[in-house]
């Protein structure tokens, strides 16, 4: 998780990724932030996030993103 938090904090500044549970619902990240996050995750983990994974639920919290990354790494 710490590794992901580092990636997220580097991609988007000023968001409490560690504690926030509803990043998308509470509009704490914009669509531009989201594309930054996707690009950073893809780069760091060497995975490709398909459009089917680009749903708000997968980006609501750092934990949700981690679950998605693990699923993609297993696939």
């Amino acid at each position: 998780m710490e590794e992901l938090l580092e990636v997220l904090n580097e991609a988007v500044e000023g968001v409490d990724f560690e504690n926030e549970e509803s990043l998308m619902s509470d509009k704490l990240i914009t669509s531009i932030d989201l594309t930054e996050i996707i690009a950073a995750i893809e780069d760091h983990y060497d995975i490709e996030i398909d459009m089917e994974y680009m749903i708000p639920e997968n980006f609501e919290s750092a934990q949700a993103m981690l679950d998605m990354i693990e699923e993609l790494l297993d696939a």
Partner: protein
Amino acid sequence: MGASMVCLKERKIMVFTTLRFLAFLICALIVFAICPRKHRWISLLALSLVFYSIASVKYLPYILFTTLVIYLAAMAIGKIWDKQKEDLKKEGLSKEDKKLIKAQAKAKAKRILIFALVLTVGVLCYTKFTKFLVGPINKALDAAGSGRTFSAANILVPLGISYYTFSTVGYLLDVYWKRYEYEKNYFRFLLYACYFPHILQGPIERYNRLGQRLKGELLFTWDNFIAGGELMLWGYFKKLVIADRVDIFISSVYGDYSHQAGITIIIAAILDVFYIYCDFSGCMDIARGVSQMFNIELDLNFNHPFFSKNIQEFWRRWHMSLGGWFKDYVYFPVSTSGWVKKIGKSVRKHGSERASKIAATIFPVVITWFLTGLWHGTGKTYVAWGLYYGFMIMCSITFEPEFKKLTEFFKINTKSVFFRFYQSLKTCCIFAGGRLLTRPGTLYMSAVCVRRVLMRGNLRLWKLTDGSLFNFGLTYKDFNVLFVSILILITVSVLQEYGQVKECGTLRERLNKENFLIRWILGFGLIFAILIFGIYGPGYDSSSFAYMEY
């Protein structure tokens, strides 16, 4: 706008502001209420088809074609995903085997998706863009000495084609991206596409929301009837008392744009912001109110956009269903596509992190806004309008750090009421600038209007007090009505926004807790205001909702 009004009149559309529509609504509610609950969705489908056919039966084949193509394509794609799921369950498959199964399924699904998109978006482009392209094509043929010319006079632009094409294409893409299951019943899908409260002007609903609501319990209750009626009344107030009154002034000013004083054009531009907001959001309130009477909630399309801090936020709160559609189906696919990522990486290698972020943002933003412009209209004015917003949004993103530093340097309290007011005012000015590109009619007319505002000695501020403003179709009494109505609109908007920020419920929820008498006084007050102050004179055109032509 004038030509489109004539066009709409010829089509005999049941616009929300006509008595014909109210008569239809009463009949629809009776049919809906007496129909057995289980079959109410069928009654809604029949009523929607009747509503659509009244404008012209000629439009029906278009909507049936689009919905059938999308329905069949989504079903075919859905079956491919089902088969893929089954194939992946087989035992003894290596990682490579699984990848191959996925790749083969994806290739098949993609072919179907492209075929369906070409057919449906092709119909949309053909009906909307042919008229725009015929002129230049004929000119080119003429220059080449060919005697042939094309005519686009007989091309029909089916009502609501942009709305239902976008809604159904969104559904197809969601099935392709495995976001939800495909619909098995074509008639259920057809109802989603042609449901009459939203067919003409949106909102562009998502299938996983409206489709599911239409499958829910379709109740007819007194509470829903009253709540829907209240929302409709508020919509009629915005449309008939404010928008239609303001429209008389604006049309008159821009009708003789080349002789106007700068201050007159400035006032027309400011009032135009109220016009388009009251016209479109009023229409949405009526549509949502009508739908609520059938116990079906339509998505919110406006969320007090003029309280936005910047232009990006504005477009998340104005015509939200269109903005959301472009964000999900254009912006994200483009911004996460391989070529945009490559550009970002390449700029990062040779430049700074910030430059890379800007480079990776500029293409998706410009493409999205160019297409948003085309959605609104096919002329150069709309292309310019789209690019104008693309430019404004890019400026806002690019210079955000500098602006933050400036506010810190001058120790500006960014949370103060004054700063919020400044942000709202700035957003309104940018929006008014965008309207000035499209409302006068052509880019040349817009340029003349801007020139007349900036022209030395042409501001002529005394026109504000010498009674000249009463020469544009509105009397002193009309201006008083407008002033009070706009004050009511702003007060209601502030109260609604306050309720949202403080999370103490919507204004309607708060009003519902009030005394029965207060609610009835407010309701009848609105009815009388609409009846007495609504615009119904000889110059009144009930079919002129601005967003109906899309």
